[in-house]
């Protein structure tokens, strides 16, 4: 009799455990399918939204051009990672500017991504912030503060001291926010140094790309 009762209790317990496992499994499966379906519908729009965003930023950092920089790009290998370098060309197919993204890892909260547009001679055409998590109202001036962004225009590695004023340089910091502008200035300077070292090779690759694309177009 007692044995029977214990057996019943055990069977009931097992049933309850089983129900929990089934319930949680079902909820998980349904949630996962919902996510899968959503991913199917949103993947392409997300890709397009990101592309539109990049296109907008490129138009802002590059001078007037006749090609489509978002597709006319060369791929630079940085420590095993492919970094796209976008090109602006004039009617003759000459490169009038190059643009690529640099990352400032030392922002106030996380890394800041900066798109740099630069002329073949090494002068900045314009810079834009493409992603950041800086404090609204303080550090995010790097996005909204037009005079501050415009200060970079025409600057080369040699015609200005690349540091914020607090560090003895020429770039303004913001009231209450020094770390953010400091990180951006440092990252842009590194970008310029990268260009100085690799300028010849980059321009050669760009010219080669143009010949190739013209060859490709010939039959059509």
């Amino acid at each position, binding site marked *: 009799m007692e044995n029977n009762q214990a057996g019943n209790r055990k069977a009931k317990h097992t049933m*309850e455990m089983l*129900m*929990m496992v089934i*319930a*949680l499994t079902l*909820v*998980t499966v349904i*949630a*996962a399918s*919902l*996510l899968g379906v*959503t*991913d199917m*519908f*949103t993947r392409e*729009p*997300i890709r397009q*939204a*990101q592309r*539109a*965003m990049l296109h907008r930023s490129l138009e802002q950092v590059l001078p007037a051009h006749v090609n489509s920089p978002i597709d006319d790009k060369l791929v630079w290998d940085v420590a095993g990672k492919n970094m796209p370098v976008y090109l602006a060309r004039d009617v003759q197919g000459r490169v009038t500017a190059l643009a690529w993204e640099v990352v400032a890892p030392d922002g106030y909260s996380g890394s800041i991504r900066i798109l740099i547009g630069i002329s073949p001679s090494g002068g900045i055409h314009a810079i834009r912030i493409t*992603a950041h*998590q800086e*404090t*609204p*109202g*303080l550090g995010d001036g790097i996005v909204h503060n037009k005079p501050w962004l415009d200060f970079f225009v025409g600057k080369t590695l040699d015609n200005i001291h690349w540091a914020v004023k607090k560090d003895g340089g020429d770039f303004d910091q913001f*009231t*209450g926010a020094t770390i953010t502008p400091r990180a951006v200035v440092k990252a842009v300077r590194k970008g310029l140094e990268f260009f100085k070292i690799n300028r010849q090779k980059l321009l050669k690759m760009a010219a080669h790309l143009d010949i190739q694309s013209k060859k490709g177009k010939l039959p059509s």
Partner: protein
Amino acid sequence: MNKTEILADGFWHNNTIFAQLLGMCPLLGVTTSAINGFWMGAATVLVLLGSNIVVSLIRGFIPKNVRIPAYIMVIAAFVTVVGMAMNAWMHDMYLILGLFIPLIVVNCAILGRAEAFASKNSVLDSATDALAVGLGFTFALMLLGSVREILGHGSIFGLSLFGEHYPDFLMFVLPPGAFIALGFIIAGVNIINRRRGRAAQSVAACRPAAHAVQE
């Protein structure tokens, strides 16, 4: 409870922000402008609607012991769906709200509604409750966002109010300003409630804030 009561309760008497003081993280994080507050609220309404309806649907089927993980799973799924949709079709706003979208998962107000309401009520009542609570939350976010935007930037919904020479009160853009503005708003809400002779309901859910006003 009839539908009107559910609506009034969710939107005002038991308002997530003014009465329960829940969901402070998105409240303080994204309400730097009225428009940010609005979209954060809209995203929360969608998640609440989804989670309340589903939780109500499965309320007879989920064993008591595992109901919280099940609810969290439901909420997390809806948050991810809303996040993906915003990323696809409202990319700019998605970038602004950023981290706060996934953080809707841990907005205890949503789990609170699942546990306290949807798990005990019909689907229709739960959907009504989600709408009421969600809109109440949105209203609070927009109100605080408006106050902070007006004081901090001299603008509302991006439209300049006082001309270019407005001295921006930076403090109201930063988190401390959010706390201060919220304190005054809650004080105001309590005054309104008392005037209307309905303070009793709000005091029960919001004792500390009510005391502060009484003192």
